[in-house]
């Protein structure tokens, strides 16, 4: 009666790319990190950003009272997983979660107690956000409004980048955002005061919203140190946002000064929503560090996180696509995206073997991004038709976009109907895009010096051997008795020759 059990032996470990925030955290001092770990919400968020092995190891050690010998833990490791296990331990040590030691293995005490508090609830840090009292006078924002607000803010930024400020969309992002874009190298002032998009800006546009958001936030964190904002406050506020409930209002009372100042920036990025208070209410603020008294517009005492904020540490789609047909949202008050929404609406591009592209979208931002590498042919209310031509792809390549980025953008946003094809995109089109890229690299050049007319073969070989030692030879020919060396190596070679001829 008992049947042979299914052998599940060929489960491949999925590729885990480390989160971009982790290197930044690892560069911080242990002191900073320990202060950060005092808040349970920060521990929980960082826990979610880690890879699966690190998470399992942390969970294994979390409820132990004392340290265990490192040998005990490594006895559980299978031989083929040894390398992954060591890498996981290294990551944890870099974040000061578990000090790397060959004798004992234990969690950082602050991290351990905070994570325990996060799981069981408790403590008095208020790190998950103090909910605001119900305001019966005014309407609080519901989830659709929050999504629309976040989408509008985010697309304004991206649209500004794509059209370099000249598009038909007159809305400009705020000064803070423009400054951030410039500092992060996504745009720069090439001619005068007008901001132009750079090649890294183009690459940025083709990333997923999640990667784009974290890219900007990392830049913000780098700038925070210069603006003398306490990094721990900034980070813990971001982590607190990621654990908040979508559609609920939270009070700004318990926030620190730094965090209240952050609210304005986060409003511009579309991460939080705040009701605007009338402009006649102004506060005077004295900032001791720069000896300036300035006016601060009083803002509302409450704020709501948008979906961009609550999905910071998860892989759910942070933005509903603007052409979504509503999707079926389960009555889930925790705000998690229902199973049937999300990815189906992200895919909207159909690519044919005759290089024609049909994009089922009416979103001007997506159209603008497609315009970067496609020649548009027709536009309909719900459809954009274009072709991948040599000119359009070369224009994109000259702007700094690579062929791989174009192909991965098309793959990520492929219409569900395209999933029937194997491979997803027609091979001819993929190869041709790469060939167009290679066309630009037909001629390679290198500056340097050509050494010829040697007196004898021995002379030539002697100098050549010396140059090879310095690794500056780009081309050589024994028949012609000459070689080509780099610009940097010239002074050394010349010195060598002069010494030789001087001595001879």
């Amino acid at each position, binding site marked *: 009666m008992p049947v042979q059990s299914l052998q599940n032996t060929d489960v491949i470990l999925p590729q885990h790319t480390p989160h971009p925030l982790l290197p930044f955290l690892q560069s911080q001092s242990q002191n900073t990190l320990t202060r950060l770990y005092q808040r349970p919400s920060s521990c929980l968020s960082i826990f979610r950003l880690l890879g699966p092995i690190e998470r399992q190891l942390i969970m294994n050690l979390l409820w132990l009272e004392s340290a265990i010998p490192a040998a005990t833990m490594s006895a559980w490791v299978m031989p083929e997983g040894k390398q992954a296990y060591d890498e996981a331990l290294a990551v944890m040590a870099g974040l000061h979660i578990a000090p790397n030691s060959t004798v004992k293995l234990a969690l950082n005490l602050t991290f351990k107690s905070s994570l325990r508090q996060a799981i069981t609830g408790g403590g008095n840090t208020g790190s998950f956000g103090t909910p605001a009292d119900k305001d019966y006078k005014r309407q609080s924002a519901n989830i659709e409004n929050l999504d629309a607000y976040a989408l509008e803010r985010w697309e304004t930024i991206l649209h500004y980048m794509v059209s370099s400020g000249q598009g038909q969309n007159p809305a400009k992002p705020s000064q803070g955002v423009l400054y951030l874009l410039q500092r992060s190298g996504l745009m720069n002032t090439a001619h005068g005061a007008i901001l132009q998009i750079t090649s890294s800006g183009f690459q940025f546009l083709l990333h997923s919203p999640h990667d784009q958001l974290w890219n900007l936030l990392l830049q913000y964190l780098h700038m925070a140190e210069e603006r003398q904002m306490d990094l721990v406050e900034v980070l813990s506020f971001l982590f607190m946002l990621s654990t908040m409930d979508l559609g609920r209002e939270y009070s700004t009372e318990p926030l620190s000064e730094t965090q209240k100042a952050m609210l304005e920036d986060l409003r511009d990025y579309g991460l939080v929503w705040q009701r605007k208070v009338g402009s006649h209410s102004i506060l005077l603020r004295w900032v001791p560090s720069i000896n300036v008294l300035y006016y601060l517009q009083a803002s509302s005492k409450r704020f709501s996180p948008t979906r961009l904020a609550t999905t910071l540490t998860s892989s759910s789609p942070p933005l509903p696509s603007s052409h979504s047909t509503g999707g079926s949202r389960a009555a889930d008050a925790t705000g998690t995206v229902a199973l049937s929404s999300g990815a189906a609406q992200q895919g909207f591009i159909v690519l044919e073997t005759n290089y024609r592209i049909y994009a089922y979208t009416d979103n001007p931002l997506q159209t603008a991004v497609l315009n970067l590498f496609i020649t548009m042919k027709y536009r309909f209310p719900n459809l954009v038709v274009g072709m991948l031509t040599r000119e359009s792809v070369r224009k994109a390549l000259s702007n700094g976009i690579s062929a791989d980025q174009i192909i991965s953008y098309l793959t990520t946003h492929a219409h569900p109907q395209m999933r029937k094809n194997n491979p997803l995109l027609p091979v001819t089109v993929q190869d041709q895009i790469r060939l167009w890229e290679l066309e630009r690299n037909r001629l390679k*050049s290198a500056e340097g010096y050509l050494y010829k007319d040697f007196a004898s073969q021995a*002379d030539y070989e002697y100098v050549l051997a010396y140059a090879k030692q310095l690794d500056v030879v780009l081309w050589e020919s024994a028949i012609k008795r000459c070689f080509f060396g780099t610009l940097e190596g*010239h002074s050394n070679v010349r010195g060598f020759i002069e010494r030789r001829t001087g001595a001879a």
Partner: protein
Amino acid sequence: MRAIKGVLLTCDSAVKQILLTMNEKDPFVIEDLDDYHLVIKADEEYRVRRELEAELEKNTYSLEAN
């Protein structure tokens, strides 16, 4: 012996022949090394690239219809 300043160009043989033809009109080549390499004058590189691209464009045809 001599050391001549220049730019080493690496390319395929077809492109090299095109460059040699261009060279007859407007000399820029210092030395012809082998089937895949040329040494040209350093300040001519930009002009050479532009002219090469223009020459190669003459060989590409695209369907502008439909």
